[in-house]
């Protein structure tokens, strides 16, 4: 890959596997035509996927950088590009460019700390990359708590991986919740922000939030009531993007470009931005 | 030079505001250089006295603003309408685009508005003051010692030279005297275009439309363009475009727009007024108006509320397509 490559010109990618996660989320495995990873990335970074003639859109890379074979994207059906992708089968070529944005500070701020991940719905997608990275380098981090909720059991993303891998890890606690009672579910029922408060976490950790804006808002309030400071909490933003490299102006909020200066922000940094995200 | 003074309009607006008849007033707001007047909503007498203007550069037609503002603002809105604006006003009512009950319309006479580019062409750049005098616009610039007087006839905007009507077709109250519908030469240039060979005509429009930068100002100012979502903005319409992909596409935008407003365009001329590239867009619309007049009988959109435009009203007298086809053939 040449250093002077034009950022807007993508690589060709091949979807090698499509996993149905929930009724509206599928996870796509992508490699280059010669079977390699298209590029390296850091946890929390994103990539632009496109289908020529349909459009291009930014997605967080769900797989961990420690996966050297392929990349994965968990994508919820909600617009033109995503609808098209949901109809794609293995073998379909797409285009891919990236990596874009700043990663979670896994090697400095997170190092040696206890970590709390809080996700709602498809918001687990960007966190899965970090969680698996931290699980891979398990000895670099303290205790890991994961609170994950969705509308129903069927809407929980990566359910198999969570049950078969995450919950079996030592010193990793997974707390699942769904919004409403459901047959065959004997776990917790209730909204994520309330669950976080109920769990009454110690403030000796860094928290990472990702989910719908309303979940972020109330979880942040919940964490504050538990004594967390905003400087201990990270989240990711999602805005319309076109170029991915801080030039087209679309994701500009205040003096920041979410594609370049984000998508990862510390919550106190968000306070400095105008409320337009 | 306008016959009605600014003070008369302020007095009217202030009294309607103070009596509680209206809660806001659409008027023209003073700019930096006399000619750069901005449409504004006034809510107090103080604002009116400070910034309301009325003069030879108050061309903006407020009718379209009523579509959005009547939904947002409590109480009635006073709108000052020049004769040509009243046609847009009626057309919007015909299309049920705003609630008539929410508007108090005051008709005001208009002697024609000046086109600042014509003023600059006559008096030069660097305008620092313009005064409306009996003889014309007295223009002081950075580069002339004494004001240059530009006669009104030289300063008038094209749409005002070819003014179609001094008659107000809608109002709750009229200031000044009622005028008449005028015989205008507004179709003369259309006739010239029709007299061209197809190749000449194509070259004319190619030259004009190639200047288009697709800023959408013509569409966004147009009182006939009130779609909640324009096809050109709608990603699922298949016609969404932001920039001309080629010379064909820029023509497509304007021609589709002209078709879309055919029979509804009142010929207010706002499209050409706002075009930053000075494309005579009104000529496309006038061609449609002229054709409608020819084939279906005289019809003026907005002349009254509720009239059915010939293109959406079937009658047995309607022109046969073959007649139209023959005309095209003759011109080929």
């Amino acid at each position: 890959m040449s250093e002077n490559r034009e950022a807007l010109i993508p690589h060709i990618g091949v979807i090698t596997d499509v996993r149905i996660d929930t009724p509206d989320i599928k996870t796509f495995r992508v490699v280059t035509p010669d079977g390699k990873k298209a590029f390296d990335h850091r946890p929390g970074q994103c990539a632009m996927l496109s289908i020529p003639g349909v459009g291009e859109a930014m997605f967080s890379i769900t797989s961990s950088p420690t996966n050297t074979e392929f990349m994965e994207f968990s994508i919820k059906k909600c617009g033109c590009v995503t609808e098209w992708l949901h109809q794609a089968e293995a073998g379909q070529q797409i285009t891919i460019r990236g990596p874009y944005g700043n990663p979670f500070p896994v090697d400095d701020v997170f190092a040696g700390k206890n970590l709390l991940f809080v996700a709602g719905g498809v918001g687990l997608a960007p966190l899965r990359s970090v969680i698996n990275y931290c699980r891979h380098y398990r000895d670099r981090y303290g205790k890991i708590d994961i609170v994950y909720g969705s509308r129903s059991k069927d809407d929980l993303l990566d359910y198999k991986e969570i049950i078969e891998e995450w919950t079996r890890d030592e010193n990793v606690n997974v707390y699942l919740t769904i919004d409403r009672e459901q047959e065959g579910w004997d776990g917790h029922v209730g909204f994520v922000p309330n669950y976080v408060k109920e769990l009454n976490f110690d403030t000796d950790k860094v928290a990472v939030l990702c989910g719908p804006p309303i979940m972020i808002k109330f979880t942040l309030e919940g964490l504050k009531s538990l004594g967390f400071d905003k400087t201990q909490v990270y989240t990711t933003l999602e805005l319309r993007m076109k170029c991915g490299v801080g030039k087209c102006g679309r994701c500009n909020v205040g003096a920041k470009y979410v594609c370049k200066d984000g998508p990862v922000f510390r919550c106190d940094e968000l306070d400095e931005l105008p409320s337009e995200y | 030079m306008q016959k009605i003074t600014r003070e008369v309009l302020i007095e009217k607006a202030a009294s309607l505001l103070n009596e509680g008849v209206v809660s806001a007033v659409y008027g023209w707001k003073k700019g930096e250089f006399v000619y750069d007047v901005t449409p504004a909503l006034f809510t107090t007498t103080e604002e009116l006295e400070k910034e309301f203007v009325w003069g030879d550069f108050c061309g903006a037609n407020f009718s379209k603003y009523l579509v959005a503002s009547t939904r947002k603002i409590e109480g009635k809105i006073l709108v000052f309408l020049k004769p040509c604006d009243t046609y847009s006003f009626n057309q919007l009512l015909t299309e049920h685009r705003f609630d008539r009950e929410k508007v108090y319309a005051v008709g005001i006479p208009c002697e024609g508005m000046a086109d600042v580019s014509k003023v600059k062409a006559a008096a030069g750049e660097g305008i620092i003051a313009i005064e409306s005098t009996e003889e014309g616009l007295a223009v002081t610039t950075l580069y002339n010692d004494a004001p240059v007087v530009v006669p009104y006839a030289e300063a008038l905007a094209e749409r005002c030279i070819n003014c179609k009507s001094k008659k107000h077709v809608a109002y709750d109250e009229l200031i000044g005297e009622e005028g008449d519908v005028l015989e205008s030469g507004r179709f003369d240039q259309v006739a010239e275009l029709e007299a061209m060979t197809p190749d000449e005509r194509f070259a004319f429009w190619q030259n004009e439309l190639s200047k288009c930068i697709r800023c959408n100002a013509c569409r966004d100012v147009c009182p006939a363009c009130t779609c909640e979502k324009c096809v050109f903005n709608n990603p699922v319409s298949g016609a969404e475009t932001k920039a001309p992909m080629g010379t064909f596409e820029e023509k497509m935008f304007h021609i589709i727009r002209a078709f879309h407003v055919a029979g509804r365009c009142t010929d207010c001329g706002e499209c050409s007024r706002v075009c930053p590239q000075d494309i005579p867009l009104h000529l496309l619309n006038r061609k449609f108006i002229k054709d409608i007049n020819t084939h279906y009988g005289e019809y003026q959109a907005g002349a009254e509320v509720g009239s059915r435009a010939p293109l959406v009203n079937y009658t047995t007298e309607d022109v046969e397509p073959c007649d139209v086809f023959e005309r095209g053939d003759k011109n080929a």
Partner: protein
Amino acid sequence: MRKCTAANLDKLFAAIAENAALYLPVDDEKGTAQYKKWAEGTVMSNALNTAKSPKDFFFPQSEDLMKFKTQGKTIELTDIRDEKEDFVVFGVRACDVRSFDILDRVFLVDPRDSYYASRREKGVIVSLACSKPTETCFCSAFGIDATNPAGDVTAWKTEEGFFFKANTEKGEKLMASLEGLTEECTEEAVEAQKAKTAAILEKLPLADLDTDKFGGGKTAELFNDPAWAELSRSCLGCGTCTFVCPTCQCYDIKDFNTGREVIRYRCWDSCMYSEFTRMAHGNNRNSQLERFRQRFMHKLVYYPENNEGIFGCVGCGRCLAKCPISMNIVKVMKTVGGKKDE
């Protein structure tokens, strides 16, 4: 400093055009100046500036980026950029020359936009000092000297002819190629013109436009100013200000399906458009107030914050002349953050 007499000007243009495409302001049939490619007989406009800004030369309104052919499940991608020819843009005013610097700070920073960069490399800018600024000019508010513009070569036009001073290597190369048509001269005539123009600049109605209220770090102070509501109320949401602006650089990337292949192109976009930030699940700037504010905050606060205090406006005055409702950055600057006299 070199001088070219008025009589030699056509020969000079011909000599430039021999080695590169030469573009210069030319009046159209209605007297509006636009950049046109020089050909034998082309007459340079005397207008103060062109209706459209020269940003097109480097950042065209629409440009093809790449092409895709799809067959079954496979995609074939072709980089279709054409090798750009060398070109010279002649007669760029000081304000517009500064706009290239502003665009450079977007397109040439990492990752460098190679489409823009290749045009910048191929283009030579011959600027032209102003001698008759107009009422809508306010470049001096942004520290631009209209009498002494930057550019690869600076030119001054006086009654005696054109005076040239090369500022860069590219400029020196161009001037060297024109040695036979120019002669060494003193700076007297140029200095006299500069002094004369400077006196006019001081008298311009917008000469005292205040930029102190703006700049990096002023977001919190200005963002919630109640004045935005009134300023933006009549905004049509069109793209005129954006598209005539020499520094607006927002763009869109779109695919055009020709039926046989897909062309991915980029085109100018406007933050004033309601669709600009719309996503499948919502829009973070839903009102025209927010979109209007974004455009001005970007030029007056966000851009300087990221670029050592340099404002994203050059005071060319095009938006003042062209906005359909005569709302513009000057009115914003005079109103937002409180009026000077209040």
